[in-house]
């Protein structure tokens, strides 16, 4: 009867699922008695987080722990990230390293890990401290770039390039994102020392490349005399330089990005962009796992661990100095 046919199909589906599972099991033995450290990233389709994963894997090998790396499909899907953390808690991981997709929204998930007595380390993006305090949550350590200092570095460079005088525009990240907000604050603080540098426009391009293009195209329309741009991420800067190219102004506008993506470094070498701020995600991932391991051994770790940052310009854009370690 059709019930049997249907059942047959469902068995096939289950069999397929089994194959998928088996295929992906390669060397991942959950019953191994090594402690498991989980790294929950914002996404895995971004070179920054792929580097972080790489660093974490190296450290996990060095310290002899099993590493689980998980990420939501979309970078801003904090609810999916929460689901992943809840599931990892069920899977009894020993420690959790998280790059929060939302500084406030991640707090309920941290509280759940706290209740399960799983230590939480925050990487790259800070948790909103007030929300965490109000919820009674606890974070063992923060490992990340000093985005504020990076923003200042960008501001100092931009002011110098303009000869301390001129009109600048800003492309912001998603409002309320701690990372972008810190970069922006650092940048504005640096510019406060140069009263003749005027910010004519400061708008969000939501971290996205295509929006970087569109928003900056509008800025060029409304402020044709703009001389410099600070984008809070390279992706937005890369979008903006296309808009600058389309307006025939390549090389006439100083563009400073953030993140030192390979593509941005290439653009700097080609003279389409002027500078970016390098972060060191490989180190970030490695330091996160290292400190998780120290916590598991019962050692204490510093609460706030800064990973170095560096200004990248035409002089050093091609060198290894800024690439990996």
């Amino acid at each position, binding site marked *: 009867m059709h019930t049997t046919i249907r059942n047959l*199909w469902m068995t096939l589906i*289950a069999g397929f699922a089994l194959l*998928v599972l088996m295929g*992906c099991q390669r060397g991942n033995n*959950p019953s191994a008695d090594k402690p498991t450290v989980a790294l929950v990233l914002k996404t895995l389709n971004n070179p920054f987080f792929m580097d972080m994963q790489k660093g974490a894997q190296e450290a996990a090998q060095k310290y002899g722990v099993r590493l689980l790396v998980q990420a939501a499909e979309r970078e801003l899907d904090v609810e999916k990230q929460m689901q992943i953390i809840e599931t990892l808690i069920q899977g009894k991981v020993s420690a959790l390293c998280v790059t929060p997709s939302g500084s406030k929204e991640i707090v309920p998930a941290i509280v759940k890990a706290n209740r399960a007595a799983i230590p939480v380390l925050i990487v790259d993006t800070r948790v909103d401290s007030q*929300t965490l305090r109000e919820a009674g949550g606890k974070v063992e350590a923060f490992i990340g770039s000093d985005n504020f200092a990076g923003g200042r570095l960008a501001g100092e460079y931009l002011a110098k390039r303009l000869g301390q005088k001129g009109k600048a525009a800003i492309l912001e990240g*998603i409002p309320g994102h701690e990372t972008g907000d810190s970069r922006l604050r650092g940048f504005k603080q640096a510019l406060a020392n140069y009263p003749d540098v005027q910010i004519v426009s400061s708008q969000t391009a939501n971290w996205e490349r295509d929006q970087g293009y569109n928003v900056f195209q509008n800025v060029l329309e409304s402020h044709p005399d703009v001389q410099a741009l600070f984008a809070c991420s390279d992706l937005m800067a890369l979008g903006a330089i296309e808009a600058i190219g389309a307006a025939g102004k390549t090389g006439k506008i100083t563009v400073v990005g953030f993140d030192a993506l390979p593509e941005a470094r290439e653009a700097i070498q080609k003279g389409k962009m002027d500078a970016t701020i390098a972060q060191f995600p490989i180190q970030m991932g490695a330091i996160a796992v290292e400190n998780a391991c120290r916590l598991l051994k019962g050692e204490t770790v510093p609460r706030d661990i800064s990973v170095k940052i560096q200004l990248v310009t035409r002089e050093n854009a091609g060198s290894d100095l800024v690439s990996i370690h």
Partner: protein
Amino acid sequence: MKFRVSLLLYSRQFGTLVGLLALSTVLWLLTPYFLTLSNLLNIAEQTAIIAIVAVGMTFVIITAGIDLSVGSVLALSGVIMASALHAGVPLPASLLAGSGAGLFCGLLNGLLVAQGRLPPFISTLGMMSVARGAALVFTEGRAISGFSESFRHFASGKILALPMPVVIMLTIYFIAHVVLTKTKLGRYAYAIGGNEEATVLSGVNVRLYKAVIYALCGLLSSIAAIILTARLNSAQPIAGIMYELDAIAATVIGGTSLMGGEGTIWGTLIGALIMGVLRNGLTLLGISSFVQQIAIGSVIILAVLADMMLKARNR
């Protein structure tokens, strides 16, 4: 004849259930962490939001329609409710404001489809963009966070060890099942999806029922928004992106035909659970999110393929 149809629906639902159980058995064999009470409750809780959205989607799809705006409507009603709460509006009134927004968007969809005769794909695609934009304008792109304990109870509360989202989900499913099987609205939904012209000719006010069904779909999105907002302690204007696809997937895995005229509420619940179980199990096994997408996509295709083969056999 009637007997045969009900048997068919029954068996379809039963087949999906067998699929869910088979999947669970595989996971139980592969990881010791899967089959624990706390993990099963965890899955149910994680599935609740999509499952609730999928109830509305099931009604709409049974009428041979589609609603692409559910995720955006969820975000809009979430931020409206959240800002009401922040403005000191009492909890019940804030919930009403949020639900009202959902109902309104859904009704607008319904009127565009029923009165305006727009294809559902187009009108709800438009609404998807309009509601998302409205949520972003309303909040200036920022999330609204931090709510009272009594509001957060919608996510963190428990009734007899069952998490609140699961209680709300089950209640909605019971009501929806009764509405779909025992009321005029339900019977006409099947009739419209089966043969709209015949339904019109038999004197049913098809426009009215269509409008009501889309409005219900919007309302259910706003109920999901309550749970999501309470869960994250934050209402984000960018919440619920791609939820329409998850809800459609749950519905079709559950045996509802995109051509309309057939489907069951419990099938949709099982469909949502299959996706939840799959995600949970693959994460427990440490399988990357890239591979998870392949697995979920394959299950959708295979489930619908199975349905079509079955139908061809019955002809």
